[in-house]
């Protein structure tokens, strides 16, 4: 039997790019534990929430990007439940009625080179809980995170594989980064997902919800890799239940992703679902979203990844493959654009960024921020190669050193005594030395093994410790060998 898979996501992403928290004047930053705390974050009696307009602005921007409908009035609701990381005993959030910051949108995203569409059920703005660390002797709570603005995005079950789910999440991360809404860094715990997975027989109509299987919700998956693994595990588990004829006994339930064992574990059934007793937060008066403000926010949406990618292909003639790589992370794309602004030719800059820079970052497992390279230094290096001051071979070494030390390529070249040999007399002399040393190769070449020319040029480069200008060396070699 073949099955089709239905996946819906709830993606929580902290809005990291506001100065203060969403309902509190405490700083919103990744800091030492319990340093960004105001009385309201610990729910001291008498404290009241005050809405951070900038958080609402950023949430509205996300709502616009996701093609959602925005509400006329913004309301907040209380979601009541007890947990030690929730000092108030309720979370200020939004429900679907009255409508939240965004509702009924859609987004196009690319998965394995194919364009796909996903419907967004709603987007809402809420506050994060504190973070807790459970130790054998007790638990530690860090209130820095309590009250950090959080965007929760709820999709329709329009995804059909782990690949699609991850591709969509990567698109969303890119949107949050490019729009200046969030760093969207899962290492900092800024992204957390709940995943809903169900399977149904392939020959049934997926547009009819009555054909959908039993919805299984998997809570708290904190990395994209985890999302992929949890989905794949859950699909396999559910298919096995089907094949064993036990699927219909499986109740609707909430499960937990256990990263260590790579499995999902039963948390609670539908009957144990928590009644959150929502009601409108009385301390925040509803406020109207002015048309003009919404228009301003719309105009302020920065160029997003897919738009930059089109620009790179159209305007710079960069390949689709390279452009995709360049826009994947905003800091890399920004770095690339800065380098171009400083006068570098786009294709050279692209080559340097995609092969040398990203190669270095991947190998060292660091991010751009951790290195000392600047667009100015890369632009200078590209210019030095163009001006034939150093060879491209030499440039690679200079680049690594500049990445690691932050020194300017000119200084590095000077210190190392790097200078390209561009004097044709000197090159001709070395070329003839090499030819003299390799009579056998000349014979092979004359007999038709033209590729041997490369070997001979390589010998020239070796002899000059890479200082010879490679083009000049090749041209000269061609001329000299023909003379023999």
């Amino acid at each position, binding site marked *: 039997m073949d099955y089709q898979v239905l996946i819906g996501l709830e993606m929580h992403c902290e809005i990291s790019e506001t100065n203060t928290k969403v309902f509190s004047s405490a700083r919103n930053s990744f800091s030492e534990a319990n340093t960004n705390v105001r*009385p309201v974050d*610990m*729910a*001291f*009696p*008498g*404290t*009241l*929430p*005050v*809405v951070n307009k900038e958080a609402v602005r950023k949430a509205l921007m996300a709502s616009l990007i996701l093609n959602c409908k925005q509400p006329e009035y913004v309301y907040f609701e*209380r979601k*009541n439940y*007890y947990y*030690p990381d929730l*000092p*108030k*005993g*309720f979370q200020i959030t939004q429900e679907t009625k009255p409508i939240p910051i965004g509702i009924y949108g859609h987004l196009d995203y690319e998965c394995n080179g194919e364009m796909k569409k996903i419907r967004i059920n709603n987007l809402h703005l809420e506050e994060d809980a504190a973070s807790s660390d459970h130790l054998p002797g007790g*638990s530690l709570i860090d209130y820095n995170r309590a009250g950090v603005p959080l965007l929760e995005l709820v999709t329709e079950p329009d995804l059909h594989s782990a690949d699609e789910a991850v591709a969509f999440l990567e698109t969303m991360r890119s949107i949050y980064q490019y729009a200046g809404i969030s760093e969207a860094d899962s290492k900092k715990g800024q992204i957390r997902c709940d995943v809903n997975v169900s399977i149904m027989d392939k020959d049934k109509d997926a547009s009819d919800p009555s054909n959908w299987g039993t919805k299984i919700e998997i809570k708290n998956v904190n990395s994209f890799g985890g999302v992929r693994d949890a989905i794949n595990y859950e699909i396999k588990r559910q298919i096995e239940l089907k094949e064993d004829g036990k699927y219909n006994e499986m109740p609707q339930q909430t499960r937990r992703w256990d990263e260590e064992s790579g499995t999902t574990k039963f948390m609670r059934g539908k009957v144990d679902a928590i*009644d959150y*007793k*929502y*009601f409108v937060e*009385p*301390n*925040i*008066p509803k406020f109207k979203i002015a048309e003009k403000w919404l228009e301003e926010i719309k105009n302020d949406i920065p160029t997003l990844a897919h738009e930059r990618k089109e620009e790179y292909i159209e305007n710079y003639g960069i390949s689709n493959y390279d452009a995709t790589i360049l826009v994947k992370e905003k800091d890399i794309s920004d770095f690339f654009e800065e380098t171009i602004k400083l006068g570098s030719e786009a294709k050279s800059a692209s080559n340097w960024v995609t092969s040398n820079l990203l190669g270095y970052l991947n190998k060292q497992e660091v991010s751009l921020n951790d290195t000392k390279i600047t667009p100015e230094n890369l632009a200078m290096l590209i210019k030095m190669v163009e001006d034939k001051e150093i060879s491209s071979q030499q440039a690679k070494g200079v680049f690594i050193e500049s990445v690691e030390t932050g020194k300017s390529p000119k200084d590095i070249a000077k210190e190392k005594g790097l200078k390209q040999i561009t004097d044709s007399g000197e090159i001709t002399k070395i070329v003839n030395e090499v030819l003299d040393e390799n009579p056998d190769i000349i014979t092979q070449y004359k007999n038709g093994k033209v590729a041997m020319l490369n070997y001979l040029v390589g010998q020239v480069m070796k002899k000059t410790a890479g200082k010879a200008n490679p083009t000049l060396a090749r041209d000269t070699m061609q001329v000299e060998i023909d003379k023999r």
Partner: protein
Amino acid sequence: MTYMDKTIEEIHEALQKGEVTSDELVKESLAKSHEVNKKYNAFVTILDDAKGEEVTDDLLSGIPYGIKDNYSTKGILSTGSSNTLKDYVPFFTATAIENLEKHGAIAVNKTVLDEFGMGGTGTTGHTGVVRNPWDKERMCAGSSAGSAAAVAAGVYPYATGSDTGDSIRKPAAYCGIVGYKPTYGMISRYGLFPFASSLDHCGVLTRCVKDAAIVTDGMKGQDKYDMTSWDSSNINLYEALDGKVQGKKLCYIKELCDINMYPQADSELKEHLNNFMLTLEKCRNLGMEVEEVSVSEKLLKASPSVYVVISCAESTSNMSNLTGFIFGPRGDGNTWQESMKNYRTKGFSPLIKRRFVIGSYVLQSQNKDRYFHNAQKVRRILVDTWKNLFKKYDAVILPVGTGPAKKLEGSKNILDENTAALEDHLQIGNYGGFPSITIPNGFINNLPVGVNITGNCYDDANVLNIAYALESAMDYKNQVAREGK
């Protein structure tokens, strides 16, 4: 010579003339506090270290006052009269209190309330029953019981209060003084322990209307920490008092005030309503028009249930922060659930727990439409009904409660269906956030009774002015309680 039984203007004049110093006033107020506490149990804390302040042109400067113990006060025990916060010393001060401090006012004690304001008897605070200074066998009503008793007993000219259903205005009536809650949001609630946020108001208990205006001017102001507060910097309630009420229009509600609505009325109720009619005559004599209007009896009778549903729902949520982990005495237990459960079970009085159960019940998804959402609808209808009255009338004038203070022993705290609407109509002022003031308007069996004037939102100056004029036409201004009058 005593000063604490005088009006703010009189005390201010004495200070400015040098007849008395601020330090001497504090001493007098503290001595009186101890005396009153022994008799009526009005205080959670008496601030014996309080010192005088510099006397300036500010009417409030150098004058002692009391703070209801549900206002957060930095470095000073703030219990909300609950065992759950019996050791809680906040590190920030409520905005309203900070504002009074800026005017040079001097807090001398923290007054007892019904636990977290959730009661109307003054008997449920963790420090015990507050007694009425006119008759120790009677209650003060609540929840601002300690503030009302202290002001009535002449401990100081004013104390702060808070009002969610009638918690300032009912005790004021029972204690023969003035109780005023201004329009919702005129005074910041930041630092006021919440009961039901959409109904909670800060306000003041005084012995005369002018003092209520002076103190409210001192407490009010937009606050960046309270989004529901609004800018009232163009309003000066004290200066707006001119006593000119010629041509003002008042209305009263037949279904609440007509003695024929209560076939089983006792003599107190008859006297109370009769006295109210005499008060209306005084209004007419002042040149005001007073008309009887009719409001659906069914709607009026729904009000107490609306109050129970909304206030219990909001309070259940508001008090979820009381877990004993971050503040308050931590409960015993091996797990956090156990520890929290023990703290809450021990800490809250049965009355409050009952309200939490109701609050949870009406918010449950299967009950929410029937109870919570319906209550919100009826609230809206009541508010609209009152707003319609305000289109034609400057204010609604009504008797407070069904008579004078009830006995502590023997009086059953059971809602009488017939008089429930009359007993509880002040809640409508909270539903709409209306400015509402109670002033004394007579005595029944040697016990004071009150009358209430409620106007439209932001019309505080008008409401106060009507009360001011009426007060001047009666003999109860700045009266101090005399036991067994």
